[in-house]
């Protein structure tokens, strides 16, 4: 690795850390703009009870002191404070609980999207302008422009209500199938299009023609040269894909009643459970930033031809 690459990686890591800090800061101050502060409910409390609560959450201190404590607790102890509505539970425990289901959901969806997307994209590129290519392109165009909540609702309607093939409730055993499909459809469509266009680009390159002229078998050309090189742009999609799955899971978990982080987040918004909103935003945002970082760095490291800015 050249020193230039290292410098780039260093810069990117710095930017990522800065971004996470901005997320924490924005979250904190936005939540403190809420009338009454984030840690108080709407019910009118007696003066004493209010004092006690304020003291408990450190609200009697200056805002910048509260901010410093909040930041310090997150960085050193990974502590996001207690939940407001679910008495006696720590925010981090609530998030960890939801994460178990959501991570499973998201990882399977991402895996399906990667495999199907790459296969379909490669097939479409190799059969360019043939019927199968046209069909794949039309379907992916439709999926790309359909919001996830529409897709989820329609799948629920067709497969769970009309045909009754799959359970509608995400808390049951087979119930995760529909949410996973819903989550996977958009990234699959996107990866298919991405793979197709980059594969077409690679197939037109000189080294493919050289390999053909040398008499390399078709199989080896496709898997050894074309596919390998056309997958590089897919790496950069890791970050956006995670971002999509995170935001998509908010609605998907709402539709299918999956007990995951997304549903926790949505219900914490309706319940105005501010510490949970803050914690979830910060953790999910950090995850997305890290995935973006990994994708970008891998992209530069994997392909030596890419020039650094």
């Amino acid at each position, binding site marked *: 690795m050249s020193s230039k690459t290292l410098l780039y990686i260093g810069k990117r890591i710095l930017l990522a850390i800065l*971004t996470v800090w901005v997320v924490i800061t924005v979250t904190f101050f936005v939540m403190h703009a809420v009338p009454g502060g984030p840690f108080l409910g709407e019910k009118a409390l007696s003066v004493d009870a209010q004092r006690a609560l304020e003291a408990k959450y450190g609200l009697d201190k200056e805002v910048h002191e509260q901010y410093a404590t909040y930041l310090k607790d997150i960085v050193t102890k990974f502590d996001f404070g207690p939940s407001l509505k679910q008495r006696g539970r720590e925010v981090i425990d609530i998030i960890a609980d939801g994460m178990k289901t959501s991570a499973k959901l998201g990882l399977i969806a991402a895996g399906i999207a990667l495999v199907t997307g790459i296969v379909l994209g490669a097939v479409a590129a190799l059969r360019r302008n043939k019927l199968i290519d046209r069909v794949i392109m039309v379907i992916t165009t439709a999926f790309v422009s359909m919001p996830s909540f529409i897709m989820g609702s329609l799948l629920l309607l067709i497969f769970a209500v009309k045909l009754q093939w799959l359970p509608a409730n995400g808390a049951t055993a087979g119930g995760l199938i529909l949410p996973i499909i819903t989550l996977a459809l958009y990234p699959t469509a996107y990866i298919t299009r991405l793979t197709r266009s980059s594969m077409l680009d690679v197939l037109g390159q000189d080294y493919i023609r050289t390999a053909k002229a040398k008499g390399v078998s078709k199989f080896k050309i496709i898997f050894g040269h074309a596919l390998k090189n056309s997958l590089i742009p897919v790496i950069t999609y890791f970050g956006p894909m995670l*971002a999509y799955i995170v935001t998509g899971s908010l609605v998907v978990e709402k539709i299918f009643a999956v007990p995951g982080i997304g549903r926790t987040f949505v219900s914490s918004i309706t319940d105005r459970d501010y510490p949970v909103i803050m914690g979830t*935003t910060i953790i999910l*945002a950090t995850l997305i930033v890290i995935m973006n970082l990994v994708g970008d760095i891998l992209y530069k490291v994997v392909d030596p031809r890419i020039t650094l800015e």
Partner: protein
Amino acid sequence: MKMYKKPFSMHVDLDAFIPATEQEKEYMVQMRPPSTFFRDGVKRLWKNKVAVVSFFIIVFMVLSCIIIPLVWPYGYDQMLGMNKGKVDPTYSNLAPFEYGETELERIENGEKVFPHIFGTDSHGRDYLIRVVYGMRVSLMVGFFASIIVLVIGMLVGSISGYIGGKVDLIIMRIVDIIYSLPDMLMVILLASVLKLVLGEALEGTILEKIGSNIISLFIVFGLLYWVSMSRLIRGQILSLREQEYVLSAKASGAKSGWIIRKHLVPNCISVIIISTALQIPSAIFTESYLSFLGLGVNAPMPSLGSLASDALNGFTSYPYRLVIPAVVISLIVLSLNLFGDGLRDAFDPKLNT
């Protein structure tokens, strides 16, 4: 007089060099009506069947958003069963083309009653007019949000591009950070808080009518989505300034007014318009997503997202209530996207060369 000509002689055949007649001259001149960049683009756009169809779908939707609320006999928040404070339950959850009890009486008496083409919802409100209003909200949010993004992006981008130096560096670092923020999470966070904060601040002003949620949506768009626009415009300014044709125009003595009018504006306006056009569907997407989560427009004003979200509750019995907004929103987003792509293909000068 015909001269004998040897096949390999160097003699010039003078007959081949007589001046052309007027008729022949006319034949050689190819006159076409002069064309402008805009007319060329429209011609190319017109040839793109997909874009033309999308365009007509958009026009149809915009027109129906304007016209239907004017002529429709029912209001979007009018509970048809509500009569002197009493609710007539026969009006709730009507299937398409069914009527409520009192309406049936009126029909028997020979009166004509306007049909509920999509039926009514659980509060006895005519569903078609609600879908139309939802469409109106979505289109308006999309349009104004892109204008806001355009204005802020253009201001920041051109300042950063023109001044350059330290200002440019600082602005671009800020842009980098905002760009790498997970946008949807920030949008949800801001929207969930802003609607509380604004709700109190707006009370009693004209803006209250628009609703705190829509205003907070606009603020969120203004805060987060200008970054890619400003990057684009800054890049355009930086690269256009260095173009050879600008240099050549300068060398031939063109004044800067001419250069701006004839070179800079035409070259960057199409890119800006295209990316603004493509911003509209993504804004509509975001609005419907937030409405679906309950962070969008204030009830009773419907939006396509909130209609779909409401329909989820009773959708085993009334699936069409979910399907209608779903189809409408997919159609809007799809046709706006396809039309935007067509615009880009037709007007992006970089692609044509």
